[in-house]
C-alpha cells in the first residue's frame, strides 16, 4: 500500500513546480516532477527578428535573468558566424560571473536556507554566543553581540506582532531542523544581510546592461560602449564602480557565504548520503578566456560524466542529431512523427496537447502519472538521463584537474570529514554551488583586469556591426547558443530563414533536471534524487522533499516549452 504525497506549490523556487511522491512507509519509492505552467515562448518567437530573440527568451526567467539573453545572442551569433570583440566577451563574462554569485547567494539564503534554518528557534538564541560563533568561522565585521541582538529584537517584534507574513506556516520546530539556536540566529541575520548585499551585487548588471532584472544585450557585442572621456559610456568612474562591486561580492562570498555553508553543513552530514539520483552529469562549458567562444579556453570545461566515473569525460556535440534529444512520453505535447521518439532541438516541436495527453482537468488532486504529467519535456544525451548544474560543473572541474576547485573540494571535505563520494548527494549539490561561487567570484578579477588592460592599450571596441543588418545574412542559417547557467547547461537552438526565426528551441537546465520520465521510464534528475534514500519524518510536513528539490535550485518557468499555433490547442484571445 503506497501513499501519495503531493507538494504543490513548491515554493522558494522560480516558477510552478509540483512534486508527487509515492511513499512506502516513510520512504519515497517513486517521485514525479511536474511543471504546471506553460506560456509558449518558442511559438511566440517564430517569425520574429532573431536579433530580438534575447529579449523574449530572457523573460523565460527573471531569476537567472541574463542566461537566456546570453544564450539567445550566442545562438544568433553561432548561426551567422558573428564574431564579437574581446571586450564584449569579457563584459559578458563579468555579467555571467556576477549573475552566478548573485543568484547562488540568493538561492542559498532566501530560497534554500529555510529548509535548514528554523527562524523561530532564532528567538531563543543568545546574541553573545551567536557573536562568538560568527567570529569563530569568519572575519566578517558585522558580528558583534549588539548586531545580533538588534536582529533578534526586530525578529521578535515581528513574530510577536502576530503577522508572520512570508514566514507563516513554515515547518518550524520540525525535528529535521538540527541547528542550534545561535546558528539559526546567525543565519537569520545573514538572510537579511544577503537581501541588502544582493541589491549591490545586482548593480554590476545594471552598469553593463542598464537594469536588473532583465539587463539588455545585443547580438554582436554589448550595448555599452567604452570611452574614458565620455560621461555616457563605460568610463573610469564606471569601471571603478565595477571593481567596488566585485570586491563586495568577493568579501561576502569569502566571509559569509562560504563559512555559513560549511558551518551549516556540519550539522546535516547525513544529507551527504541521500538525494544523489542519476550519477550522470552534463556540462556545455562556458566562460572563455578570449574573444572567441572556444571550449579549449573555458573556465568551466565541456563534457559528460557517466555513472560517477570521473576518470572518463565524454565530449558533447550540440549540433549532432543523435546526441541531444527531447522526449515527450510523459509531457503534455504532441510530436507530429509520434510521441515516443526524440527530436533534436533544430527539429524540435512544441505542440500543446493537455487534454489528449493525459492532463487532468483542474481542480485536481492527483496527476495521471501513467500518461503525460508535466509541461516539461525529457531531454536526453545519447539517450541518457543526466543531471546538470553546480554539482556537474564542480565534478567536471575536479575531474579535469582544476587546481583551485580541487583545493576547495578537498579542504571542505576534510573539514566536514566526508569522503569524496559525499559530493553525489543533496548536501554535495548545495556545497558544490557554494564552492563554484568562490571559483567564479575569484575569476571576476581576471576578466576585470583583462578588460582594464585592453582599455589601457586603447582597445575599446565593444560591438561589431559587420553582420548587424539582416540584409547581410545568408537566406538560411542555424546555430546553437549555449552557456552554463547557474542551474546548469543551457542551450538555445535557432533556425533562421529569410532574416526571420523559423524555429526556436530552448533546452534548459531545469528541463534536464526536472523533466518527467522518458519513454523507457527512466526518471529525470529530481525524480531520481527523491527516490534515492529519502525518508519523511512527517508526511504532513515533507521538509525532506523540499531539501532535495531546492538543492537543484529549480527554475521551472525556464523549463517549460511552448506551443505551436498549428495545433487545435492554440487559442488566440485578445481583449482590448
Amino acid at each position, binding site marked *: 500500500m503506497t501513499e501519495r504525497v503531493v507538494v504543490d506549490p513548491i515554493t522558494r523556487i522560480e516558477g510552478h513546480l509540483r512534486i508527487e511522491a509515492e511513499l512506502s512507509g516513510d520512504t519515497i519509492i517513486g517521485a514525479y516532477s511536474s511543471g504546471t505552467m506553460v506560456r509558449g515562448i518558442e511559438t511566440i518567437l517564430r517569425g520574429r527578428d532573431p536579433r530580438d530573440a534575447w529579449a523574449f527568451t530572457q523573460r523565460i526567467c527573471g531569476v537567472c535573468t541574463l542566461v537566456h539573453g546570453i544564450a539567445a545572442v550566442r545562438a544568433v551569433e553561432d548561426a551567422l558566424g558573428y564574431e564579437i570583440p574581446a571586450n564584449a566577451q569579457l563584459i559578458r563574462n563579468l555579467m555571467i560571473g556576477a549573475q552566478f554569485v548573485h543568484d547562488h547567494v540568493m538561492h542559498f539564503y532566501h530560497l534554500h536556507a529555510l529548509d535548514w534554518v528554523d527562524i523561530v528557534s532564532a528567538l531563543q538564541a543568545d546574541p553573545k554566543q551567536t557573536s562568538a560563533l560568527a567570529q569563530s568561522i569568519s572575519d566578517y565585521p558585522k558580528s558583534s553581540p549588539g548586531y545580533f541582538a538588534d536582529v533578534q529584537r526586530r525578529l521578535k517584534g515581528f513574530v510577536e506582532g502576530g503577522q508572520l507574513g512570508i514566514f507563516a506556516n513554515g515547518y518550524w520546530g520540525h525535528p529535521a531542523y538540527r541547528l542550534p539556536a545561535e546558528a539559526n540566529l546567525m543565519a537569520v541575520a545573514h538572510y537579511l544581510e544577503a537581501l*541588502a548585499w544582493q*541589491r*549591490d551585487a545586482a548593480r554590476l548588471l545594471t552598469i553593463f546592461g542598464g537594469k536588473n532584472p532583465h539587463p539588455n544585450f545585443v547580438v554582436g557585442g554589448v550595448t555599452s560602449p567604452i570611452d574614458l572621456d565620455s*560621461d*555616457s559610456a563605460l568610463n573610469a568612474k564606471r569601471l571603478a564602480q565595477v571593481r567596488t562591486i566585485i570586491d563586495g561580492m568577493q568579501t561576502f562570498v569569502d566571509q559569509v557565504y562560504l563559512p555559513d555553508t560549511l558551518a551549516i553543513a556540519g550539522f546535516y552530514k547525513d544529507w551527504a548520503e541521500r538525494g544523489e539520483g542519476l550519477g550522470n552529469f552534463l556540462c556545455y562549458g562556458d566562460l572563455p578566456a578570449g574573444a572567441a567562444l572556444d571550449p579549449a579556453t573555458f573556465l568551466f570545461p565541456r563534457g559528460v560524466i557517466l555513472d560517477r566515473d570521473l576518470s572518463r569525460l565524454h565530449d558533447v556535440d550540440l549540433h549532432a542529431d543523435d546526441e541531444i534529444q527531447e522526449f515527450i512520453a510523459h509531457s503534455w505535447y504532441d510530436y507530429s512523427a509520434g510521441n515516443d521518439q526524440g527530436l533534436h532541438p533544430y527539429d524540435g516541436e512544441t505542440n500543446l496537447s493537455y487534454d489528449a495527453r493525459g492532463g487532468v482537468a483542474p481542480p485536481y488532486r492527483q496527476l495521471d502519472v501513467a500518461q503525460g504529467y508535466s509541461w516539461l519535456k525529457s531531454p536526453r544525451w545519447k539517450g541518457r538521463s543526466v543531471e546538470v548544474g553546480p554539482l556537474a560543473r564542480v565534478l567536471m572541474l575536479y575531474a579535469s584537474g582544476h587546481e583551485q576547485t580541487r583545493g576547495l573540494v578537498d579542504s571542505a571535505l576534510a573539514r566536514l570529514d566526508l569522503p569524496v563520494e559525499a559530493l553525489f548527494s543533496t548536501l554535495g549539490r548545495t556545497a558544490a554551488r557554494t564552492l563554484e561561487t568562490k571559483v567564479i567570484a575569484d575569476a571576476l578579477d581576471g576578466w576585470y583586469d583583462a578588460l582594464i588592460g585592453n582599455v589601457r592599450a586603447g582597445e575599446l571596441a565593444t560591438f561589431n556591426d559587420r553582420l548587424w543588418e539582416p540584409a547581410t545574412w545568408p537566406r538560411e542559417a542555424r546555430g546553437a547558443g549555449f552557456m552554463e547557467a547557474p542551474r546548469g547547461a543551457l542551450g538555445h537552438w535557432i533556425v533562421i530563414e529569410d532574416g526571420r526565426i523559423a524555429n526556436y528551441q530552448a533546452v534548459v537546465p531545469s528541463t534536464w533536471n526536472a523533466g518527467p520520465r522518458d519513454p523507457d521510464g527512466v526518471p529525470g534528475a529530481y525524480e531520481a534524487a527523491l527516490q534515492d534514500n529519502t525518508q519523511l519524518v512527517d508526511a504532513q510536513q515533507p521538509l525532506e522533499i523540499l531539501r532535495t528539490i531546492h538543492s537543484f535550485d529549480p527554475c521551472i518557468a525556464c523549463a517549460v516549452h511552448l506551443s505551436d499555433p498549428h495545433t487545435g490547442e492554440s487559442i488566440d484571445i485578445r481583449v482590448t
Partner: protein
Amino acid sequence: MTGGSVSDPATMPAAGGPDWDAAKAILNEVRHALRHFVATGESTLIDLRAQPFAPGDLERLLAWLGRGEVEARVEALGPTRVWESAVPGVWLVDHRDGDDQRLTLQIEVAEFPEILRSPAQDIEQAVAILDARLGAAADGGP
C-alpha cells in the same frame, strides 16, 4: 545667476551643451525659490532624485553650487549629511540609509534645514530626560 558668492567662474563647468540643461533648470528653480524665500520667508524643498540627470550632471551641479561654511551630520536611520552651498540659504540635504545608500538628495532653500531642528515633542520631554540623567548621575555618584 544665483548671486555673487559662487565658486570661481573659471572652475565652473561650461554652461550650455546638452549635459548641462537639466542642471540649468534646477538652478533656475533654486533662484525662484530664493526670491520667494526673501519675499515671504517660506522655504522650498527640491528633490534632486526625480531629475533626469545625465551621468555627471549631478556632480557638476554640486560643484557649481559649491560649499559654504556650515556642515552637519545627523544620525537618524543611517547618516544624513547637510551642508550649505556657496549660495547662502541654499542647503544640500543628503539622506542615506544604514548601508550608506542614498535615499534622497534634496536642495532646501531656507534659513536652516528642517532636519536639524529639534522636534518639538522631544523638547517637551527634555526636562524629564535631563532630570532622569541627573538622577542617574546622582545615584551612580561621579
